[in-house]
């Protein structure tokens, strides 16, 4: 796919290892993203968005469906509270999270199934109503091993998802997809359709049959407007109307239809009516203003785009009919004082009455639950089942309730949350826990890396293609078309990834989110202020615990400011040339070493590069056709090669004296690790060796010796101490090997007394080596020239870095970096390098423990 992924041959090859999947409840870095928190079922949206960008659709599917059994449905009609919560809303519009879900579900929803779960518990649960609340609870309970019997009064499951939402928004096949997946996944759910509570089965029957009963009966019935004349046969209720339409009826309606209300039912009803034969004009009458209308903005805009007029601040007062003509008499309203729900109550404007002509009025002003059976048992409170939110129980201890029927009309995703919640308490009840832990929405992350698309900051939000009514409106063609691959990927790239940890330990996600909260909390809110402060007062973990290794990373260089003349690192020249023993001239204080395991293809590239950049190398075998100076690595008794500029002896089993023959005109050197120094340095000085390789790796002669463990930096410190003690500091040149990764490392090792640094792993990676679980791998996807360029580039970059470091310290020659220019920031590094801790008392070097 062609988005703006960095596709040049370079970076595409970078495959840094991914962090292993971790359960984030244990992960101190994890802070759920605002979208995830806004989702009632805690959908891990950032992860599935990340997976979409990575084109890992099965993984995205898993993240989507983990807490949402109606993912295909939600991909089309969820009211998506995640989107207004999206941080990008404030800049150029929220991520189209719902559209992305739809994209994945369209791709995989049909034939991607979850593995079946078996019944393992002897108790069974009875659930009344196969809507989103009931079926979500059924799935959770089935996953917990219970057999679940679901009683549905209609002929198919789905509740309001089937009967409340017209097919142009939610085609029946999509509902079928989710149902298939759910029932295949949970064979323990037994569905009984056409069974109505109170008619075909009683509550007592259910209580006898099942260990617990969950009532998810929905709010199935439209509320009346409560105005004069509403008994007119041309006044119908919205949910009833939609039920007829969704059963497949396409009645011919009068030319003019008015829908009263501003919620989602009103939106579906007006758009369904518009598609019916005979209808020419549909108007929506809403008693508050455009700011207050509860309908999802997208649907409202689409309704308007379909030529439906929304009349705001208008309230019906009477249905007038005379002489076969009908009208809805309305008054204007304005916003008054806030009511108990916090919303400002509309008040009527006196004398503003007017009649709106129409042939039909659809009331969509709210729904209610009704059940004579439950009423008879005293379980109803008005138009809802009396339910305790904290336990999801009714007054009957064996009976639980959830969803719209218990808590009033809401959305599919809220109903699913109720289902999860109820299942939690039902399960606790069946487990014999009388005082269960309170339910909480789980927030999990799958730790997906952020999209690496260079245009993530630039892509605008893109809506799905809007099709409107289509050629044959009453056939209900879908109103929108799912994203194509490119659009989906670009939309996914836009994600800020609020869940992903930042690159800065100082401004971690936790810190950033705390600051966000501080920026949104007035100081009058003492409770929240106290909570933030208490949270911020909790100490952070020690960044340098006992097992923290010494590292080049924990050394810093001291810049020139006032007490030293500032050098301009962008302009003032800085010498990087150096030499080893006056004989091997180097343009940069970096040579290659420890690369004997390089594949043939990479060796050729390396040889070219080293000659071009003026470097040298230390290996057992010479590089093919390379003009770069070769320091031959050999064991005592090995045969000196005339093509080399010098011999460097390595003793794999530790240093012991050996007979050494210096070759005329060549330099002779010795490899020493920490344990060798006390003997090796006097030996080298005694025999007039010109150089010594200080080996901080597991053994420079081995295969990729730098992967053999953490570098031993103390070799540098100890070598310098010994030659200083012997007063022979100037008599031998040190080259340090082991864990050198950058020009900064080189600047530091020069400051510590070495003449140059040797790179192995760093060079190998530049030549195309990739780190994996099995070590370093190379691939045949680069030409020798590319490898050579890359090898030269890494050395140039290191040279530039080293010289920037030198100039920052006020030096114009890399060779002039001194111990005095360095400070340690950890005690471990202070000890290992013999460098004072920054800020500590002057001259106080933390000595090695021994």
């Amino acid at each position: 796919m062609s988005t703006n992924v960095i596709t040049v041959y370079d970076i595409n090859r970078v495959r840094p290892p991914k962090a292993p999947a971790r359960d984030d409840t244990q992960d101190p870095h994890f802070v759920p993203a605002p979208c995830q928190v806004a989702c009632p079922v805690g959908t891990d949206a950032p992860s599935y968005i990340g997976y979409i960008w990575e084109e890992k659709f099965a993984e995205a599917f898993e993240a989507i469906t983990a807490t949402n059994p109606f993912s295909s449905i939600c991909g089309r009609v969820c009211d998506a509270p995640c989107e207004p919560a999206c941080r990008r809303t404030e800049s150029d519009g929220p991520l189209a999270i719902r559209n992305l879900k739809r994209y994945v579900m369209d791709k995989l929803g049909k034939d991607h199934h979850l593995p079946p779960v078996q019944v393992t518990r002897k108790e069974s649960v009875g659930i009344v109503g196969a809507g989103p609340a009931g079926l979500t609870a059924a799935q959770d309970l089935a996953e917990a091993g219970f057999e679940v019997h679901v009683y549905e009064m209609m002929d198919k499951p789905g509740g309001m998802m089937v009967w409340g939402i017209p097919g142009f928004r939610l085609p029946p096949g999509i509902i079928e997809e989710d149902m298939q997946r759910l029932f295949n996944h949970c064979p323990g759910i037994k569905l009984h359709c056409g069974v109505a509570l109170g008619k075909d089965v009683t509550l007592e029957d259910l209580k006898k049959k099942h260990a617990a009963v969950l009532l998810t009966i929905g709010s199935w019935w439209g509320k009346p407007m409560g105005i004069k004349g509403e008994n007119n046969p041309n006044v119908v209720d919205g949910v009833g109307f939609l039920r007829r339409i969704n059963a497949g009826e396409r009645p011919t309606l009068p030319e003019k239809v008015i829908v009263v209300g501003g919620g989602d039912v009103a939106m579906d009803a007006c758009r369904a009516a518009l598609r019916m034969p005979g209808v020419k004009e549909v108007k929506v009458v809403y008693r508050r203003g455009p700011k207050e209308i509860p309908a999802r903005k997208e649907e409202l805009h689409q309704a308007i785009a379909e030529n439906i007029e929304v009349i705001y601040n208008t309230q019906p007062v009477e249905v007038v009919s005379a002489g076969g003509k009908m009208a809805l008499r309305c008054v204007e309203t304005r916003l008054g004082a806030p009511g108990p729900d916090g919303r400002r109550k509309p008040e009527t404007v006196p004398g503003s009455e007017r009649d709106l002509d129409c042939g039909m009025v659809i009331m969509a002003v709210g729904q209610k639950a009704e059940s004579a059976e439950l009423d008879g048992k005293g379980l109803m409170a008005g138009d809802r089942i009396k339910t305790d939110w904290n336990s999801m129980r009714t007054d009957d201890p064996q009976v639980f309730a959830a969803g719209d029927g218990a808590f009033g009309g809401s959305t599919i995703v809220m109903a699913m949350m109720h289902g999860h919640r109820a299942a939690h308490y039902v399960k606790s009840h069946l487990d014999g826990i009388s005082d269960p832990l309170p339910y909480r929405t789980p927030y999990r992350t799958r730790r997906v890396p952020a999209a690496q698309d260079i245009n993530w900051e630039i892509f605008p939000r893109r809506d799905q293609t809007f099709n409107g009514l289509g050629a044959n409106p009453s056939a209900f063609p879908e109103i929108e078309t799912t994203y194509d691959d490119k659009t989906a990927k670009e939309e996914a790239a836009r994600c800020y990834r609020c869940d992903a940890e930042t690159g800065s330990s100082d401004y971690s996600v936790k810190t950033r989110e705390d600051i966000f909260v501080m920026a949104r909390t007035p100081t009058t809110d003492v409770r929240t202020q106290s909570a933030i402060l208490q949270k911020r007062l909790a100490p952070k973990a020690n960044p340098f615990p006992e097992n923290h290794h010494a590292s080049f990373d924990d050394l810093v260089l001291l810049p020139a400011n006032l007490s030293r003349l500032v050098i301009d690192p962008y302009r003032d020249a800085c010498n990087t040339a150096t030499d080893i023993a006056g004989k091997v001239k180097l343009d940069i204080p970096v040579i290659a070493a420890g690369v004997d395991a390089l594949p043939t293809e990479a060796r050729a590239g390396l040889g070219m590069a080293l000659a071009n950049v003026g470097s040298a190398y230390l290996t057992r075998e010479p590089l093919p056709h390379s003009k770069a100076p070769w320091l031959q690595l050999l064991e005592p008794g090995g045969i000196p090669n005339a093509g080399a500029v010098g011999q460097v002896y390595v003793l794999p089993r530790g240093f012991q004296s050996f007979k050494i023959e210096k070759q005329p005109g060549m330099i002779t050197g010795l490899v020493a690790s920490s344990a060798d120094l006390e003997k090796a340095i006097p030996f080298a000085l005694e025999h007039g060796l010109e150089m010594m390789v200080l080996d901080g790796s597991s053994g420079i002669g081995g295969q990729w010796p730098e992967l053999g463990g953490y570098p031993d930096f103390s070799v540098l410190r100890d070598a310098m101490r010994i030659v200083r003690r012997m007063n022979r500091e100037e008599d031998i040149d040190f080259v340090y090997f082991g864990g050198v990764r950058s020009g900064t490392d080189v600047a530091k090792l020069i400051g510590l007394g070495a003449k140059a640094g040797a790179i192995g792993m760093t060079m190998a990676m530049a030549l195309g080596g990739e780190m994996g679980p099995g070590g370093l791998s190379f691939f045949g996807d680069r030409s020798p020239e590319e490898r050579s360029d890359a090898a030269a580039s890494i050395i140039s970059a290191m040279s530039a870095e080293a010289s920037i470091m030198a100039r920052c310290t006020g030096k114009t020659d890399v060779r002039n970096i001194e111990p005095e220019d360095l400070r340690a920031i950890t005690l471990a590094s202070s000890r290992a390098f013999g460098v004072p801790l920054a800020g500590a008392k002057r001259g106080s070097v933390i000595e090695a423990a021994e």
Partner: protein
Amino acid sequence: MAKIDLSVTPVRDANELLRQFGAEGVDVEVLNPDARHHIGVGLTHPINVHIRGSAGYFCAGLTDGPRFTVDNNVGWGVGDNMLNGSIVVNGNASAIPGVAIRGAEIVVKGNIGSRAGQVMKAGTLLACGNANFMAGYMMYGGRLIILGHSGEKVGQDMTGGNIYVAGKLGEMGTDAMLTDLPANERDEILAFLDKYQIPFKGSFQKIVNAGKKLRYPKTEPRRRAIPFFESFADNAYWNAKVQEDIHVKSQIGRYRIRGYGAARPLPHISDIAFKKDILPAIGTDPDVLSKVKMDTEIGGRSGANPLKLSMPVMIAPMSYGALSKSAKLALAIASRLSGISENTGEGGMSKEQRQEAGQLIYQCLAGRLGWNIHDMQQANGLEIYISQGAKPGLGGQLMAKKVTPEIARIRGIPAGIDLRSPSRHPDVLGADDLVIKVEEFREATGYRIPVSVKLGAGRVRDDIKIAWKDGFDFVELDGMQGSTGAAGNEVLEFVGIPTLSAIQEARDALSEVGGLDMPIVLMGGIKDGIDAVKALALGAHAVALGTSAIIAGGCIACLQCHVGTCVTGIATQDPEHEKRYNVPVEAQNIHRFLESVRWQIAAITHALGYSDPHQVSRDDLVALTPEAAAITRLPYHPEYRERAQDLRKAS
């Protein structure tokens, strides 16, 4: 014509008099100048000033409009930063004549010293004699005419402008080249010479920028940041970040660039805890704000009008350029609403920013970008930038994408270059020069405005003693956790010392020399009221918030500030991106954040039993880590960490 006799009138009084005469439109004759420094500094009226003798450093510096004549020689930096007007020097000029001029005409009849016209932006500098080395060093615009010999390294690292040499050409400077001289330009030069009645017969060679160093040759592949714990916290040597760095550098052949500050873990203020267990007391008093006095004055040490802060907090310097104008406005509004100071940073002062900020510190950098006398005079504080914690030793860096025509105009530089600001002041090569520079600023503003120094933390122990000796009114001390809009990754991570080490060294050094009367404003990773109180206890007089204020105003910490297409509209100059930033909303967010910081300072101070955060001292602190203990010499009490955890469990 009025007369001022410098043998009886001190320069400070003389400059006040000059300004008065200027306002009245009276020309002035200056007698017995005796090569005194700062003659005529800060004059902004178009009067004639005749100096009867020689002038010292910065003659006619920081001026706009006057016409100076000097009978004899001038010292360093004649006409420093002059906007309009003219100077005719009948003798020779010492080093950096015409430094940072922005439109003036400077005519030196004799020879000129080295680095003539350094960082000049516009105007004309004419030497009738020879120039010394590096004439036109780092000039951004304008013209430099040398009738004699050019000297060595002419045009060294020039970015814009033209150099015309009539005499012998010395070695060409880096990134400078010869080019053809169009006839009209030659005519303009001759007209200029005529204007100043300078006879000339001869021809010119023209030198311009060769353009090889203005843009990085290869674009760095952009990568979204690897989570920090994968880079640092797992203690793995060849970690994901190291691998990515090597792979990227092996493609571009140079160091990587990014935004923000040191990203790896460092010893920090968070490794310090309060000795007293204050958790139970937090929130018990609903009205702590009225019980803690936080008003903080800073900068009055040498008689200037101090900044009056409603709490010991400032906004840290951040430039318009690195940040969008909208983001700077939001910061300015928030700082005013919270009664604290805002700081221009490197990029000059915008009108809107000046209007919105209650108290504004105006920063002077080595490149003198956007620097001018008028904005100095309407500032509430002047600040000499020596370095910053994020990249001490390195100049500012603004990638071409952000160097828009407007940014270029306000800074006085060519648009569309990868701007790498110089890191060394043209006129500050050592502590002694700095004293003279500070004095110039004071002269230019009538000693009314405090002058501070911004120091990136390095050899703090030595540097801060110099700052104290040079008489700064306060120091903004910036540890390596300080952030920036763009810098080389290696410098961000490995140059400078942590904020905690910096305050400790500063305090130690000032104690040694009896210099604790010089206030320190600590910055670099200060995130909340907790950090602020600890910083005060460790010896700071106030703190400055940068990154945290930006985050409060919508930054998501993606570390891509250098790219120029900031997704939130903060670190961008692209109008399409900037319009994403809602100034009133974000100003309120930042304001609420600052108020929350205030509340935290009050709550902690109160819980510790004090009525002013400045009363909190080292005696109230313990160190939680061995590093923090070794740095601060506070008692090491790791068990205080457990105390907090036990409490959390209990609640």
